[in-house]
């Protein structure tokens, strides 16, 4: 495989993240100003010090002008990227490669999305002209295909599946309650989650991520320059992005209990980072919990649980904040909502905080800080599309050079 990776070649030296939520009083421009300012301040640089920008947004603006206009970026390259719900991660990946190539000294990856201004609940995806032959299902419906398929394959009855899904939502809300940037900062009882009105298949309201506005940004420099900016840089160990051939929707061999794209990008990322046992070696993971069955399946696709065993691990608390491998310690999409272009960078922001020991009440105890023993690597995972037809991104970042 000719995916060589850029292990330890670039580092994040500053990050910013707005609170996520219903920002009726803020525009896309406002959020871009806030996250970029926070990121530059965090890195101790001025906007003028940034050589190139990668802006991720799916539906909140077109072209580099979406960023250059509000920030008054002075005749510099601003690249607009879009890759469904992995848009923010894609902006980050491209900015990293640009710095690693030597083309730029300082790059900014920034993601933004304003969903609440549409007036609709859920995602509104801009459509290209079509022949009307595709079933126009909502995102929760498309992801809810996973639940009966998983239950059928592994002999998990519908009540057990509901318990597992509820446990995931409960955990992520519990984590989000500790996060001042989360859209929802309250714990939610399992009973409330389980008894919520159904949205799609077995998915109730609490099995779905919220709809929110938000923005997040990162400043990227060459690893060798990292300590010029901060005492606690985060080094990029692996970046893997794949777009699947979308054969799951046409191939009867696909069983709707896995995202093959995630398996491919995770395998590639682990290879780039030199990770053999992700569950043991990672301190935490931020994964794309757009809907609760998604997080369940991801535990297996990312190699955190054996096939068919993920549901038991979820129930056992393996992925709780104080579990063996905390997953979505910041509360995930579940607590943050999912402003598409921002989510991937929001996940990295949590890795940034945790690996630097800045996560406050939700700081993971197994993380080794300032050279102390402990784990030093985190994974972020971000996907777009729907089961059978996805794009997937996996990053691994760490607080130490290997």
């Amino acid at each position, binding site marked *: 495989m000719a995916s060589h990776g850029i292990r330890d070649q670039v580092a994040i030296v500053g990050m910013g993240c707005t609170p996520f939520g219903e920002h009726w009083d803020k525009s896309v421009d406002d959020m871009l100003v806030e996250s970029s300012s926070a990121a530059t301040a965090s890195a101790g640089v001025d906007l003028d010090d940034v050589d190139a920008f990668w802006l991720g947004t799916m539906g909140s603006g077109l072209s580099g002008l979406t960023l250059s206009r509000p920030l008054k970026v002075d005749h510099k390259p601003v690249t607009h990227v879009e890759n469904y719900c992995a848009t923010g991660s894609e902006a980050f990946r491209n900015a990293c490669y640009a710095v690693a190539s030597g083309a730029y000294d300082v790059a900014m990856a920034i993601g933004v999305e304003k969903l609440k201004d549409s007036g609709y609940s859920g995602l509104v995806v801009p*459509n290209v002209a079509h022949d009307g032959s595709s079933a126009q299902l909502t995102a929760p419906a498309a992801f809810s295909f996973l639940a009966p*398929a998983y239950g059928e394959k592994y002999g998990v009855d519908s009540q057990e599946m509901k318990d597992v899904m509820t446990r995931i939502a409960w955990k992520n809300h519990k984590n989000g309650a500790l996060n001042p940037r989360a859209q929802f900062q309250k714990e939610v009882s399992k009973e409330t989650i389980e008894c919520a009105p159904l949205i799609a298949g077995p998915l109730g309201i609490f099995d779905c991520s919220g709809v929110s506005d938000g923005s997040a940004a990162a400043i990227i420099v060459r690893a060798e320059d990292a300590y010029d900016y901060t005492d606690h840089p985060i080094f990029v160990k692996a970046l893997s992005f794949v777009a699947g051939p979308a054969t799951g929707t046409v191939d009867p061999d696909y069983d709707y209990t896995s995202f093959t794209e995630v398996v491919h990008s995770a395998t590639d990322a682990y290879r780039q980072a030199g990770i053999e046992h992700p569950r043991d070696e990672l301190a935490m993971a931020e994964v794309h919990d757009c809907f609760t069955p998604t997080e369940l399946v991801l535990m297996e696709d990312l190699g955190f649980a054996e096939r068919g065993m993920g549901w038991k691990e979820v129930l056992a608390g393996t992925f709780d904040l104080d579990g063996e491998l905390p997953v979505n310690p910041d509360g995930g999409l579940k607590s943050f909502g999912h402003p598409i272009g921002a989510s991937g960078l929001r996940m990295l922001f949590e890795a940034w905080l945790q690996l630097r020991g800045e996560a406050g009440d939700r700081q993971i105890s197994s993380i080794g800080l300032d050279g102390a023993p402990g784990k030093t690597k985190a994974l972020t995972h971000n996907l777009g599309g729907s089961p*059978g037809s996805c794009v997937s991104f996996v990053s691994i970042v760490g607080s130490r050079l290997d």
Partner: protein
Amino acid sequence: MNGIVSYGVHLPYWRLDRSKITQTLGQGGGRGTRSVASFDEDATSMGVEAGRRALAAAAPGYGGPGILAYATTAPGYLDKTNATAIHAALRLDDCVPAFDVGGAAKSGTAATIMAHNGGIAVLSDVRTGRPGSADEAAGGDAAVALIFGDDAVIAEPVGYAPVTAEFVDRWRVPGESYSRQWEERFGEHAYVPLATQAVGDVLKQADVQIGDVDHAIVAGLHTRSVKAVSKQLGCAPERLADDLLDTIGNTGTAHWALMLANVLDQASPGDLVLVAHLADGCDASLLRVTDEIVAFRERQRSTAAEQLAATTTELDYSSFMTWRGFLEREPPRRPEPDRPASPPSLRGNAWKYGFVGGQDDGGFIHLPPGRVSVESGAIDEMTPVPMADRRATIATFTIDRLAYSLAPPVVAAIVDFDGGGRMQVELTDVDPAEVKIGDRVEMTFRRLYTVDGIHNHFWKARPVRS
């Protein structure tokens, strides 16, 4: 010898118990039930379903119709031909002409005349009336397709006698969803002598007596006249064909053909069938059933009675009103589906209307057809594979309570076709609570939605019930 060589009926899955009209409105209704086209059906889609059944039941070696003539009082479009969508869905050769006929109940006869020389006549109707009206309760929705030809004729024509008359008994201004009628007794005054003349003429033409007729079909939108003519015919009551009004209702353009199909479902070789259709005059025909009817029944997928038995009367009046557009209900806070674009629809005609997939050299079936093989990556080595008649099995499913629909929730499934091929498809005519992995489904042509006046016709899956 020219005559009917095959026929097919489509009855919607839904029927409305007329007592529910009375329960809701305190008027209207009556006894029995009426058939109701589902929210995703229209005269075009029902015509396709009837046509599919007729074509499937044609004798081995049947080469296809030479013309398609389509009649309805409920056309999806004006200016644009509706028959072309039926033509495309039936995968008829592009050299076969397709025409719409009129907007009058009488036009079913015209379609039959157009098709009598080796064509297919599709008669399909969605009948409605203002809430609480007699038409609302009495109407019914159904489609019938009749195929004509020279070989393996199951019913041959013995005579045809039309009588034409101009009088204003029932009328509807274009754009209105219901028709109006003159005083009932006037219609009877006008119709009965016309029918008497037409029936007399056709019997004389064929040199038979009314006592020789084994099945007498009298149809028309004017119920009082139909009853009067039936009574005055002079044939034994048991020889009067079931008018299907108690169960299906009056299906307008399609009704005489529906009654005929129901008669042919049960007729014996040699039976003489009289059809008198009262519409702006009267068209009287005589047909004789042939020995071929026996072989036809073995090829027939389902009789009208069998289809009727597979319907449900669990339809609320409020749903009926909503489907008909009389009750505008709060939509979900989701964007409406967007308009299907004409250029991609034309490019994908075989898929969108004909439900034709692509099969690569290795046998893998692609739905929709693509240019590149999923398995081998080979480019442009696909052969078309018609999939509409293959059944499929549900691999997984969902019930989408958020998606936009006139009949929420939307039920959708991933289905795997017998012999290969998978797709995500919406289910219809289904109880959401009953769906499960492993269920068997079959394909049905439907109107998914209408945006900007463009009807989006495509295929859905429905449970296999027979």
